[in-house]
């Protein structure tokens, strides 16, 4: 496996590891971004108004049960396309539930007294959301994004089953060819990428989460 990884031949070119990593990151970020664009506002809305929580949370949980592989294949067949779009659909479906549920949980976990105080001192609904609820919910929002990233990174490998690139290529080709070093290398790179992105989020958490909210402040 290490031979595979350290062989410089494997790193360069449009099929090289470098390019595959960039593709994989691109799939991940695109899917994560789109999931966030959909799930964050919805989560914030229901968390802030406490309206529709039951429906949204249960739909969110049900969506977790969608099998990514089936969804992916369904997306290919339905869009009658191979390429990025069906993969994006499957990955976004995977990314939405964790972001949605933890954003909601974050907001609804804000101490009622704190919101009461904010309202009582004359904050508008929008000010309460942006100045009080979101900052306090930030740790959970970030952890939702982390969870989504972890799942998307690892599931983006199946994009290779429907012809896309990314690190999944190594895993799937390795599987087809029973080329284990290649497959191991692919899996390892995916795990490393996941850990790296996770660390980035941890860092983002350090920056965006007020020290006042850390447990042992």
């Amino acid at each position, binding site marked *: 496996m290490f031979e595979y990884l350290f062989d410089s031949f494997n790193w360069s070119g449009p099929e090289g590891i470098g390019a595959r990593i960039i593709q994989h990151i691109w799939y991940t970020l695109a899917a994560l971004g789109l999931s966030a664009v959909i799930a964050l506002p919805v989560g914030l809305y229901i968390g802030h108004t406490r309206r529709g929580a039951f429906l949204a949370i249960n739909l969110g949980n049900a969506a977790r049960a969608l099998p990514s592989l089936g969804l992916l294949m369904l997306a290919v067949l339905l869009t009658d396309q191979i390429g990025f779009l069906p993969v994006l659909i499957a990955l976004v479906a995977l990314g939405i539930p964790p972001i949605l549920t933890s954003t909601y949980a974050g907001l609804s976990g804000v101490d009622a007294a704190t919101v009461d*105080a904010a309202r*009582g*001192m004359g904050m*508008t609904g929008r*000010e309460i959301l942006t100045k009080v609820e979101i900052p306090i919910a930030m740790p959970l929002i970030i952890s939702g994004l982390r969870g989504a990233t972890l799942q998307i990174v690892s599931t983006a490998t199946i994009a290779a089953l429907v012809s896309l690139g990314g690190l999944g290529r190594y895993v799937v080709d390795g599987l087809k060819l029973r080329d284990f070093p290649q497959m191991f290398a692919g899996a390892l790179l995916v795990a490393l990428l996941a850990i790296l992105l996770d660390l980035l989020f941890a860092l983002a958490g350090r920056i965006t989460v007020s020290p006042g909210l850390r447990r042992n402040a």
Partner: protein
Amino acid sequence: MIEFEDVTKRYPDGTVAVDRLSLRIPSNEITVFVGPSGCGKTTSLRMINRTIERTGGRITIDGEDINAKDPVVLRRGIGYVIQHAGLFPHRTVVDNVATVPKLLGWDKKRTRDVAMELLERVGLDPKLAQRYPAQLSGGQQQRVGVARALAADPEIMLMDEPFSAVDPIVRHQLQEELLRLQRDIGKTIVFVTHDIDEAIKLGDNVAVLRVGGKLAQFAPPAELLANPADEFVESFVGQDRGYRALTFRQAEGVELGPLPDELIVDEAGKPVGWSKGGDELLPVGAVFHRGDSLRAALDAVLTSPVGQGVCVDDDGKAVGAVDQAILAGALRS
């Protein structure tokens, strides 16, 4: 003046939390709402800043119906303090205090100066300014809450059981500080508590509510202790009300008797004990000042081993004594 006229609050589920409440809350004084749990204190309080909307009647501030105002504007002009302070955990102490000035768009320097000044005013070390609420004790948090509510210099302060989550000793300190602060700032304070002692200690006027949101009695505390309006108030005011009522009567008018010979004083005139014949000394007991209440004077008599309460001046010098008989006369008058 805040005036409640026939104010009613019926929650959507049908609970009538406040029932035709009429009340005049005088300006620049502390008015306390007290009553058993669920009697509608919080509801009444929060109708003033419209974080709960009344369902009947009228509330006016200085004659103007509060419903005529934009609630956000109304609230910015009213300070609001609650249990656990409801501080923003993600903001430092000074930023918490500066919340309303920031909302109002004051410039940075002014905001900061006001915030720091307020911290001092409520008795907080300016060193704590950069801490987060979680790093403060309960009592300190409560002080920050008061400072935050005062930041925009509102005419009115609403305080909902602000001290009920701290321990008795700290609560006592906070009460004293609130009284001291109020002497300086003279706000119109509406204070909610379920602790009758706190109500009596803090209130210029006390509104006793009964469950169902009906007003049982509205009176200054001395009056409340002396003449409870009915059995409910009487039982709520509790035992010792006669003794506690003495809090509101000055010892000033009591005629002091001469210092008894048995009282031994040091060279500065401070009492050190009662001579018992021989070298042995009995403890002085509690002493009282001229400005103290009759309660302190009575306690001095009761703790004295010889039945003579010692009165001291501001330097601690014994200036006279009272006994039971003198006090009885003062009490009767």
